[in-house]
């Protein structure tokens, strides 16, 4: 080692005597400023008699932008990895740090007449391969020297010392590099996981219609989740940042109650849960269930921040209202025919012998009709609950449509209340449908027509083939259905407003389910004051010997 240092010092001095060694490099750099090449981490001893060209070639090999008194090597660094090279030029020694494998370079450098190059490799692709590669590199240099010996050689001892030091450095780099890479990878994974968790939370909020918020009172920072913005109908940029602008989004009738609950939470830390309406900027009103709690500073007894959730419960509220109306409607509808049945039975009992034959017959018929109505109401309720529970299975078969319609109309005779039913269906028309399901749909549509249209008006039932489908229509001369209610009549429990006729509000909902279960569609054509036509489709069947008229 001492001998080596002496040699280097001597060479260095000799160069100094010969003039400024860096001038040569500086001159060369003026010609070539940027070099890109293969990289290695090397400690190279330039031979005292190395020429500028040789130095430049070496610099060129390792790549980068080199300045006379130092070098900055550039490399394209992959995301999550450190830049792969740094170079320092000091005196006759060029030190380069790199993290890539370039064994062939070692031999080339030796061929150029350099005394020795010891390359320190760091971990490659996360594998701790630096130390073995460095040993391989040193060995290669020795071989290269042997093949093409270049004087003066340094002694084996010094060489071994440097090789060992390089090996140690490689080992350290391996370790730190691997640790660093692992840490970066872990960080990367954490960021990915965090992003994934955030995405899942947003998705969950969207599905559950639950938004979340936080309000840092100290920093006056308000954060709303995307779903909360969606519920309130505001964009992320327009979220209310003051109490006043927030309260303006609450329905005026609910403002005081909400304000009181939120202020109490802020003052005392008592969590709140309130239901109120939100008036969105587009005018739409939504019902929400809002919950919140406070983070308190126990020492000063002040609230530092508040956070909470807001769930959109508009649908639930609508359903609750419909159910309330349904219960009151159903109990009325069940009671009405029951009242008639009980009444006429009582009348027959108390006055049976005094009544005329005609009256007795009429009263018996009325009992029968009301019992029929009661039965059909109960059937509808059961039907609906079965359909809702998914317990209805259909067994489609080939049916002659005209036959099914005629037998349904016959069964409905007692409730037709004087309406004439005109059936105009070609007997060639056959459908693929479940007989009971089809009858339910027909009954509901014809009963509806009879219920809503004035007495003695005509109900028309017709059908025609349309491609692979059959379109069946029931038309009445009733009051019609206003445009804005046409879609809603298919909702369970919905009744057309202003209509005096009774019903569970389930008939069309049940009909729609049956039609859809059989792969069809149902719709309304109506002109207020001029009647309604309800149509639905069924799969068309080619006439077969097995068809029946149910």
């Amino acid at each position, binding site marked *: 080692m001492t001998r080596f240092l002496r040699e280097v010092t001597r060479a260095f001095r000799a160069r100094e005597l010969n003039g400024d060694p860096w001038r040569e490099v500086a001159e060369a750099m003026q010609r070539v400023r940027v070099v890109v090449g293969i990289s290695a981490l090397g400690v190279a001893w330039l031979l005292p008699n190395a020429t500028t060209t040789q130095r430049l070639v070496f610099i060129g090999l390792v790549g980068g932008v080199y300045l006379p008194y130092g070098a900055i090597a550039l490399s394209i660094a992959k995301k999550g990895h450190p830049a792969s090279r740094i170079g320092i030029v000091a005196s006759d020694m060029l030190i380069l740090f790199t993290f890539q494998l370039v064994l062939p370079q070692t031999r080339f450098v030796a061929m150029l007449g350099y005394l020795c190059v010891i390359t320190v490799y760091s971990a490659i692709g996360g594998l701790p391969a630096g130390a073995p590669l460095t040993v391989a590199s040193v060995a290669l240099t020795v071989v290269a020297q042997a093949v093409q010996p270049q004087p003066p050689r340094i002694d084996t001892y010094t060489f071994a010392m440097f090789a060992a030091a390089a090996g140690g450095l490689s080992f350290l780099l391996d370790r730190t590099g691997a640790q660093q890479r692992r840490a970066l990878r872990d960080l990367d994974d954490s960021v990915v996981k965090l992003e994934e968790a955030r995405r899942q939370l947003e998705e969950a909020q969207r599905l559950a219609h639950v938004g979340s918020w936080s309000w840092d009172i100290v920093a006056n920072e308000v954060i709303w989740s995307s779903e909360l913005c969606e519920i309130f109908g505001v964009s992320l940029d327009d979220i209310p940042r003051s109490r006043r602008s927030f309260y303006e989004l609450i329905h005026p009738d609910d403002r005081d109650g909400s304000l009181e609950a939120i202020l109490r939470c802020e003052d005392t830390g008592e969590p709140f849960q309130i239901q109120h309406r939100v008036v969105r900027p587009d005018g739409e009103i939504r019902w929400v269930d809002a919950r919140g709690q406070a983070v308190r500073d126990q020492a000063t007894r002040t609230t530092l921040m508040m956070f909470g959730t807001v769930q959109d419960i508009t649908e639930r509220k609508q359903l609750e209202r419909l159910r309330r109306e349904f219960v009151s409607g159903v109990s*009325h509808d069940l*009671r*009405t025919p*029951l*009242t*008639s049945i*009980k*009444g*006429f039975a*009582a*009348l027959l009992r*108390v*006055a049976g012998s*005094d*009544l005329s034959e005609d*009256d007795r017959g*009429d*009263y018996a018929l*009325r009992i029968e009709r*009301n019992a029929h109505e009661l039965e059909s109401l109960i059937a509808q309720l059961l039907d609906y609950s079965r359909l809702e529970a998914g317990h209805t299975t259909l067994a489609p078969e080939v049916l002659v449509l005209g036959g099914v319609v005629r037998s349904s109309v016959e069964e409905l005779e007692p409730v037709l209340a004087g309406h004439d039913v005109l059936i105009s269906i070609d007997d060639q028309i056959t459908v693929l449908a479940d007989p009971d399901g089809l009858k339910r749909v027909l009954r509901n549509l014809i009963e509806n027509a009879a219920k809503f249209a004035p007495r003695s008006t005509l109900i028309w039932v017709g059908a025609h083939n349309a491609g692979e489908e059959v379109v069946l229509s029931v038309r009445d001369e009733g009051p019609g259905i206003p445009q804005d209610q046409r879609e809603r009549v298919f909702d369970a429990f919905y009744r057309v407003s202003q209509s*005096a006729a009774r019903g569970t509000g389930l008939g069309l909902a049940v009909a729609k389910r049956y039609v859809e279960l059989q792969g069809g569609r149902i719709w309304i054509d109506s002109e207020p004051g001029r009647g309604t036509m309800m149509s639905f489709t069924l799969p068309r069947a080619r006439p077969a010997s097995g068809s029946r008229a149910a």
Partner: protein
Amino acid sequence: MLDKRALVVDDEEDIRILLRGLLAVKGWSVDQACDGHEALARTATESYDLIVLDQRMPGLTGIETALRLREDSFRGPIIFYSAYVTPDFEESIRSEVGEENFVVSKTDIEDFVNLIHRLGDDR
């Protein structure tokens, strides 16, 4: 016995026929009206000893019809015959229409029969 005349007002045909039958057994002759307006039109030209009103009807409610009848100086008894007889309903009839009226639940036919029996005897 003088023929007693009653007017039955209900939008449900079955109920009108039933009440007519029950009243007829007790010797009443009965006219029918489908709603409050028809009832007012009938009382303008005919005189009745009793009016039976349903509360829930399209157009005028039973109470609204009764108030108009009283304005038109109908002095006879009115029976409110409703599916929903609640204390609130009875109270509003007493305070708005007067003490002299009767309220009968549709679910209690016997009550109605007894009431018209009593009214028939009073006459």
